[in-house]
């Protein structure tokens, strides 16, 4: 994985509107979102969300905007090669 991308880890409140809030933020602010994975945490009041986003000059703004969402509890930045997406890739390898 090149440094073109970076991996964000979000802890969010677990309710049906959260996904809309997060993906809506990306589309309306013209941020690039390459991949998304989300499951409830063990404590199911929360969900963990993994995002693969473009590592460009907009990244700090993306992080600030994600923090502003009221359902976001925590935002952590990881390296592009974080295994969350590397391991998922086997399920997405082919185009057919």
């Amino acid at each position, binding site marked *: 994985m090149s440094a073109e991308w970076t991996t964000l880890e979000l802890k969010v409140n677990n309710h049906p*509107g959260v996904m809309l*809030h997060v993906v809506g933020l990306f589309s*309306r602010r013209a941020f690039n979102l390459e991949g998304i994975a989300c499951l409830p945490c063990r404590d199911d009041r929360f969900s963990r969300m993994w995002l693969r986003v473009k590592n460009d000059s907009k990244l700090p*703004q993306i992080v*600030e905007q994600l923090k*502003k969402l009221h359902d976001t509890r925590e935002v952590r930045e990881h390296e592009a090669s974080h295994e969350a997406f590397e391991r998922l890739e086997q399920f997405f390898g082919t185009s057919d």
Partner: protein
Amino acid sequence: MKYTGAEIIIKLLEKRGICQLSGIPGGANLPIYDALSKSKKIRHILARHEQGAGFIAQGQARSNGEVAVFLATSGPGATNAITAVADAKLDSIPVVCITGQVPQSLIGTDAFQEIDSYGLSTPITKHNYFVRSAAELLEVIPEAFRIAEEGRPGPVWIDVPKDVQNEEIEVEAFPEFEGKAPSHTPSIPKIITMSKLINSAERPILYIGGGAIHSSAHEEICALAERLKAPVVSSLMGLGTIPVAHPQFAGMLGMHAARYTQKLLEECDLLMAFGVRFDDRATGKISEFCPQAKIVHIDIDPSEIGKLKQPTISMEADLRDALDALLPHVLERSDKTWLKRLEELKERFPLETPNAGSLFSPYGILLQSAKMLEGEFFVTTDVGQHQMRVAQCFPFEKPRQWMTSGGLGTMGFGLPAAIGAALEHPEATAVCYTGDGSLLMNIQELALIAEEGLNIKVIVSNNDSLGLVYQQQSLFYGKREMASRYQQRVDFCQIAEGFGIEAIDLGKVENPQSTLEQAMKSKEGVLINVPISVEDHVFPMVPPGGANHEMICGLKETAQKGALS
């Protein structure tokens, strides 16, 4: 004791101290209205359109800084509310919108008046809720108020299905409303670094915006400017923070700034950006905005810092707290060279207000009517040429006197916002400066002036046109006028009378001066129609997308520059 969801909503609003709110009832919010009918503490103001209700709430919130509430039903009630809520988002106004929704059993079935209010409101609110049980309301309502006013204020939308409104639950105790969480304490080392930069500047300018109003930082801003002998420029949203008559006030910056304001900005070596967001209408082409200046940016919203312009030093803080901490470290300056430069530029390149002595010139009607105002007053505008003229020259004296749709630029804002301000301040005069195009967009709310007996002066600068559109077509589209002139003239006086309020056509009365004076000084609501010429443009003007120094100052110059093809 047992309460329904609807009763819980009303009880909590009462507890929060809401004593008047606007809205419109409909099928999906009737239980809320039924609960409201039993309230002895909350008065309801029946708007004629949900957008009107939303702007009434904004007028309440903008004029007193408190969270205001409005109600709408599902479906069209919700979609009508959207513009007013989006407007509140862009100008950071604390408003809570409570909508009815179809019962949860019908959600997703395309039921009558069903619309995804939660989905629609997501991108235009600070936060939004879809409430799934009456018990949730006990948490959601206080949290909504906290979010609306905390940090950078903004609108919150609460969508409540009808079955939740009707659900009865046992409530042992109603929750307390928490106050705002304190903002970040300004860090002292940073304050000291910032003060060093400020103390070493030769030509500093304060650039202030809506954040100065929201944080009530006006006294601190005046104190800082006076200590530094520094000029203060304001964005559209920051007007009124320091009195327009203050000798250090250097006007509104941006697309319609006076030439001296622009020239002063070009010369500054330090820009103190306080509670601003470097909006494109203020900065023009951002790469050419104050290119020589170092920048100090203080804002309560960290996402605004570095969003468009990278500051030399910045701080995420409530502006008032930050300035309180900063002031002791700022050295008193005795050198007035920079202020003399302001005076010099102001004299050479003043704001031009042609024919200001005539009541029938666009500037004249504003300036003359302003002089006639007595006692406490509030000013709202709609959007267009009249708005820019009021912003350029109205003698504002204090914060919150001025209310305008800045970010979204919503025509139709002025009248209902004036109603909101008048409801909160019955002793004051509310003036709505508007144009014929804008007024038509929420004209139905004229009914409330009569119904509520409000002291509102609606002053219509009437050129039978969408004047600012016509101006842009004249300047930038080869004079090809398209859809900017109304073919059918509207008799606004007859309309006003139809709504039960007094009306004056200033162009038809024998003594316009004394008639206007009498109308401005009366305690009654009145509509005043003032015919003006569509050929009077607002200058200066920076061509959209251009740099601020490319401003056009008059038609002649436009022709010379070849902007007219």
